[in-house]
Structure formats: C-alpha cells, structure tokens
C-alpha cells in the first residue's frame, strides 16, 4: 500500500529525513514513532505531496505520491486539526464529501453515518468555534473516514485529547481494523500504539532505526516504550 525507497528530505543544511525506506502492506496497522523533530510528520507530508523529497521515491497503492490519483482512497487527519470557525461540523463534512465527488444524496447519507460513527449527534450544527479540541479531532477523523478510504493517515490523532477521548479514538480505530483498512499512525503515545498497531518504525534525527512487527520490537519482557527510549538515547 505504501512504499518509501531511500526517501530523503533536506531543508538547506538540515536533514529532516535521511535515506528512509520501508513499506506498509494492505490492511496493516503501522505506527511511525519517534521523538519531536524526528521527521515523522515530514514523511507523512512527503507521502501526501505537501512537500517534495530531495531524493528517493514514495508511492501509495503503486502510484507515485506526486500524482493526485495516489490520494484517491486516502483519508488524512493532520496534527493540530482545525475547522474554519464559521463552519459547523456538518458543513465541514459536507465539504469533504463534495471534494470527494459525492452526489448530494450520497453526501447526506455519508455525513449522517459519519456523525453517528464519531458520536457527534446533536452537535453537528454548532459552529466549529464552539467545539472543544476533542470534538474538532472527532470531526477531523470523520472527514478523513468519509467515502470508505483504503488508507488512513493519522498524524498525532490523540494530541490534546483527554484519556477518555484517547480511548474513544482507539476503540474507533479498532473497529476500522475489522474492515481491512490500512492505517499509518504517527504518534507519541506508545501504550496506545502497542494496543492497536501490528508493526512500527522508530525514527530518530531523520534516520530509520528499526522497522518490524510490534511483537518483534518489544521482546524479552520489554515494552515498546523501553525499546523506544533505549534506541532513541542510543
């Protein structure tokens, strides 16, 4: 589903990502782990063609990430997600449905389904300016899930959420796993990653340190957190 071959991104003299290669299979729940500034978000941004790699190749579903068609069937929830304050959550979802090319009746049905899925019935008509961080995050996830995407890219989906919100997002992602969706999860919350992901890559200072299944990374009674700290501290 996702393939990175020697992906490198330099900002002047700073190497944000250096020769990173890995692949994510269809239906896999994959976590991209690393401390702040490790290059996780840069990888996500290169995959979505938000920034061009200095060298290397990135592809989604066999198509180069520079092609708009590669983003067909991709849902994305950015870090620090926000909606224009003058739009309601429903209007935001309707815009997303419109951009995905849905007809009016299909968009209405899909938005209704999504509002139920994210548990925002009764608040969908309120303006985004009145939403809490958790509510915004749910609508962001709803926008990413519209149209049954095959691949979901989540950049720090639990950032700023309280423990209840984090748990709700985890339960939702576990539900989606049954549908065979592929997920690329960029997160700091190692305990949550350990609970829901099949495999992970640990990145530090733009370099890939390890990429394997969670069970292979966390062995001999170590938790993912133990391994992460050991690898990052060198």
């Amino acid at each position, binding site marked *: 589903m996702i393939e990175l071959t020697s992906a490198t991104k330099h900002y002047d003299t700073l190497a944000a990502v250096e020769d990173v290669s890995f692949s994510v299979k269809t239906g896999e729940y994959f976590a991209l782990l690393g401390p702040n500034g490790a290059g996780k978000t840069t990888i996500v*941004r290169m995959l*979505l*063609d*938000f*920034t*061009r790699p200095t060298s290397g190749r990135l592809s989604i579903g066999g198509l180069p990430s520079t092609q*708009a*068609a*590669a*983003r*067909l*069937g*991709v849902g*994305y929830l*950015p870090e*620090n*997600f*926000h*909606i*224009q*304050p*003058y739009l309601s959550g429903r209007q935001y979802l309707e*815009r*997303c449905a*419109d*951009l*995905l*090319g*849905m*007809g*009016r009746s*299909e968009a209405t049905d899909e938005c209704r389904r999504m509002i139920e899925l994210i548990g925002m019935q009764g608040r969908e008509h309120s303006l985004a300016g009145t939403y809490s961080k958790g509510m915004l995050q749910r609508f962001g996830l709803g*926008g990413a899930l519209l149209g049954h995407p095959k691949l979901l890219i989540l950049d720090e989906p639990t950032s700023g959420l309280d423990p209840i919100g984090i748990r709700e997002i985890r339960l939702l992602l576990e539900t989606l796993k049954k549908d065979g969706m592929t997920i690329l999860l960029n997160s700091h919350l190692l305990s949550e990653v350990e609970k829901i992901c099949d495999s992970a890559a640990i990145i530090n200072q733009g370099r890939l340190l390890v990429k394997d299944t969670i069970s292979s990374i966390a062995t001999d009674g170590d938790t993912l957190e133990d391994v992460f700290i050991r690898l990052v501290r060198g």
Partner: protein
Amino acid sequence: MSRPQALPPILKIGRFTLKDHVRQKSFIVMFLIGAAFVFFTRSCYQGDYLVNGQMLGAGSVAGGIAKMSFHTIAIGMMLLAALLAMRAFSHDRDHGMQACILAKPITRTQYVMGKVLGLWILALACMFILHVIVFFIMALRVKAFMPAFLAASLLCSLNLMFVVISVLVLSLCMSDFVAFIAVMAVTVISFVSEGIHALHQSQMLDAIALPQGAVSQADVTWTTVMYYLWPKLSGLQITAASLIDHGWSGGWADLYPLVNIFAYCLILLALLLWRFRGEEII
C-alpha cells in the same frame, strides 16, 4: 472506484472560496458601504447644471455622472479584489483548508485555478451589482437605458482578474500586505501614466509649450516603451467606458489595453501555477 462528479474540482474550490468570503463581516460591510455610496448618488442625476453659462441637457448630465460612477466603482472594486486576494492563501493555510483540500485527489493546479475563479467571480459580481444599481437609477430617474453600461462593466472585469492573480502571485513571495501595496502601486502608476500620456498627446499642451512653428516630435524613448508595456489597467477602463458613450472605434488603440491585460493575466497565471507547485503545504 470513480464516482460521478457533480462539479469539476475547480468549480467546487471556487464555490468554497466565494462562500468563505461572503461569510466574512468585513466583506459584507465593504460591499454595503459601496452600495450605499452608489445609492446616495441617485439625486445627482437630476438637477440644473450650468457650465460656462450654458444649461446642460439631462442626457449629458446623466451620461457624465454615469461615467464618473462607472470609473469610481471600477477603481473601488480593484481595491476590494486586492483586499480579498491578499489573504486567500494564508487564510486557507491558517484554517487547515489547504491541507484538507490537497489531501484529496485534487491537483495543485485545480486548487489555484479554483481560488482565482472564486475570487474573480466574487469581485466581478460585486462590481456588476453596483453597476446594475447605477443602470437602474439612470433608467428610473432620467429614463436613460444604457445596456452598454453593463457590457462595459463585464469588459472591465478583466482588470479584476489581473488584480486577483497578481496579488496571489506576490503573496507567495512576500507578506500579504506588501503584495497588496505592490499591486495597488502598479494600478496607481497605470492611471498616472495614462494621465501624463494624455497630457503629452494634447494639442493644447503643444500649443503652450512649443514655440510657434515648431513641430512636436514623437520620439520612441524608454518612457514610451514602459508606458506601452506597463499593465494598461487605466487604458482598459477607459476603453470599457468608451462603450457607454459609443466612443468605441474598434481600432488598435481600443484593443491594445485589452490585449495587454489579457497577456498579463496569462503570464501571471502561469507564474502563479509554477510558483505554487513548489509551495510547502502546512
């Protein structure tokens, strides 16, 4: 799996752009001030005007004031178009709309074209509505029907396209406010140079400045070249206004400003698309 598309992505983004601006209070206030200004001029169309001791006819009064209103609205709308365009990209970026749109299977070209289209249609609609108000005031108060007035309005909308595209291009290279000021400076220079050129061409000035018997020489200098190459915003507006009093000759002098601004729009649009391709999406 492909779905039947209700509208092409460019039109959808254009519609979002239009809706986003119409929702803003500052836009509504600016438009209402413009409409109120045009409405309050209605009493100017009737009255006794005395010029050089001669009473002016109702038709020439209406025509003169209509042209004045036409120019004032057209200039005001260029200002509004620049104000609307200057924060178009940064507004989308700050509200996460750019990332939301470009994470979908939509190309950067479609996004930029949608923004240009939305802003241009919004500015054009505002200008056209104000011109329609003037048209109806003339029709109702002095019974002067001037359909050419509306055609002139549409022709003048090419100036708005120029302003929108140039502000968008410059806002990618410099701060939004500096981009706005730069385009306004281009507009002011266009109007001032047109005035200087008209003065230079005037026979009255020749008669005052040149000694008796001397012949004015039309030498090609760099200022002349600059005058012709500079965006002919003022020229296009004058050409459009000439439709109102049937002064349009259809000659090269009338067509040149149109060609000039159209060429600028194409060049700037190509530059905008090229520049946005390398833009980092946040």
